[in-house]
């Protein structure tokens, strides 16, 4: 999400935003679509290929946007997707 600011905040160098990495086990997925629907940063989408069970697993289309919130991990009923913290990076704003 990108907000527009009127001026640069005074604590811009103290705020750090996490960057997460998504791991998917394709053969456990049953194609329900919960992770794709409820990602707040729209990182995931259905992939065109099939897995061994015949479903379309998710794929990462926006890897720079993941903020490691963990909703895909908590909402997956198959334990097929999880996220790990990659690094903390500074806030990028435009004003």
């Amino acid at each position, binding site marked *: 999400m990108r907000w527009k600011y009127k001026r640069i905040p005074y604590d811009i160098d103290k705020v750090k935003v996490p960057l997460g990495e998504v791991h998917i086990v394709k053969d*456990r997925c049953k194609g*329900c679509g919960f992770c794709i629907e409820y990602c707040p940063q729209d990182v995931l989408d259905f992939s065109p290929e099939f897995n061994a069970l015949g479903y379309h697993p998710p794929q*990462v289309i926006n890897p720079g946007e993941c903020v490691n919130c963990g909703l895909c991990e*908590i909402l997956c*009923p*198959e*334990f097929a997707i*999880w996220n790990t913290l990659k690094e903390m990076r500074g806030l990028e704003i435009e004003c």
Partner: protein
Amino acid sequence: MNTVNTVNTENKEHQVVNWLRMDRIPHIWCPGCGIGITVEAFVLALEKLKIKSDEICVVSGIGCTGRVAGYIKVDSFHTTHGRAIPFATGIKLANPKIKVVVISGDGDLISIGGNHFMHAARRNIDITVICVNNFIYAMTGGQVAPTTPFTAYTTTSPYGNFETASNIPQLAESAGAKYVARWTSLHARRLINSIVEAIQKPGFSVIEVVSPCPMYYSRINRLGEGINMMKFYHKNSVIKHFEPTENLNIDYQGKLIVGKFVDR
């Protein structure tokens, strides 16, 4: 397009894998079923409480939710239909130090096991009951259950259900339970916190989890798949803590009131 899919998991596995019997995964629940989310929330609650795997015991009955005992890697019991709570009572009496959790479905706990539910609440046994409510008897083919809403279609009510539904929080509170809450499968984080509170609280605690059933309830009533039911819960659920339990009836496709209702 830079994709970060990893098929094998050499750097890490899912964090709940230590608590699951991995030779039985992938499990038998349908795509879009909410029971997998309940199992995940339960395991994450155990991690938050820092409970070791020999201090907890899981008991389940018969049904779709009743298969939970086969997937969690703790001492677990898969018991006869409706009798999960008497088994749990026996375990707690034999060894009062371990925590006993009953995870079972609405047909198992409220219908055939309604008698045991009422008396365990009256005796205030220190167990936690997680009742996954999908409004039908799912495993046997989608038949009408005491929790089916008025006018819903099921396999054995082809002209619409003509009975009003039981209200699980009201039954629990009037029988004397100490902690009663209701959440849906979508409110996963609040469900984790609720399970943490319920396990720590001494006395009989009940958590009802409203879950989609994509194969029977949603299909027969033309409500879509699991994702459509989750969007329905998102739009129509309202959090009202400490609401009087007589207002908590679930109408067919009506407003769902969730939250923590009793904490005494």
